[in-house]
């Protein structure tokens, strides 16, 4: 089974959104999954950071400035693994003096995740 979440959020000047995935249906992985994240920003100056189950998958990483809903595979950000019930958290920071839009898409594909 594959599930997808996709949305966009405005991030104010010099502000941080601690979790853009918050309140989404699959904010917590519904099953053990291999995930993929895609993202774009409306202009240069956004950084994104992915945490899954409290583990940092990426440090704050520059987001491309393609200003569109993410295309696969062009706007690939990172892959990750998630166990059932783990929280997916994407923190976005705007390092500029102007408000920007962050576009994101996360797909979760059911997988056998080996632990330990």
């Amino acid at each position, binding site marked *: 089974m594959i599930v997808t979440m996709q949305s966009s959020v405005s991030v104010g000047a*010099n502000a941080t959104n601690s979790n853009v995935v918050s309140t989404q249906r699959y904010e917590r992985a519904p099953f053990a999954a291999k995930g993929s994240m895609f993202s774009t920003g409306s202009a240069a100056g956004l950084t994104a950071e992915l945490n899954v189950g409290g583990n940092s998958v990426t440090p704050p990483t520059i987001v491309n400035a393609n200003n569109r809903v993410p295309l696969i595979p062009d706007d690939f950000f990172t892959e990750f693994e998630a166990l059932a019930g783990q929280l997916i958290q994407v923190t976005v920071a705007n390092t500029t003096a102007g408000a920007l*839009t962050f576009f994101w898409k996360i797909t979760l594909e059911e997988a056998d995740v080996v632990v330990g």
Partner: protein
Amino acid sequence: MSDSLKAAAMADEERKDRAAASKKVRAFRCSRTGLYFPADYVEGWGTKYGIGLGPTPVSEALVNNYQSVPIAGEGTDAMHPVGNCHAQVDLVEVTQAEYNENAAVLVRDDPRMVRRASIMRGRQIAHSRTMQSMYPKEVNAGSPVR
């Protein structure tokens, strides 16, 4: 120096200024905003200009997204989000004066978007009712609008 010599020298300076202003220069023009980019814009694509904007040279000029509600930053003014317009750029020849008048503020010269955000916020206040209600005229009398 006599008055006539001074007047002649001044006239000569003025002629030189006019000649310099009417001299044509090459530039790339954003087909959406009309702003000009330097002549090496395409040559320097991905290194000097357009970093993060993909492989094809397009305009890095900003446009306002009025469909999103204005959002406030931390201790900064509220504004609609902005984004790169990605419009086509065309090679043109314009006078130096015209170029200077409509030169785009480049990302490399304004990486934190301080100058560009100020310009875009000014435009939003001029063109968006939501922003006009948030910012009384007297507060933003000094906002640059282009």
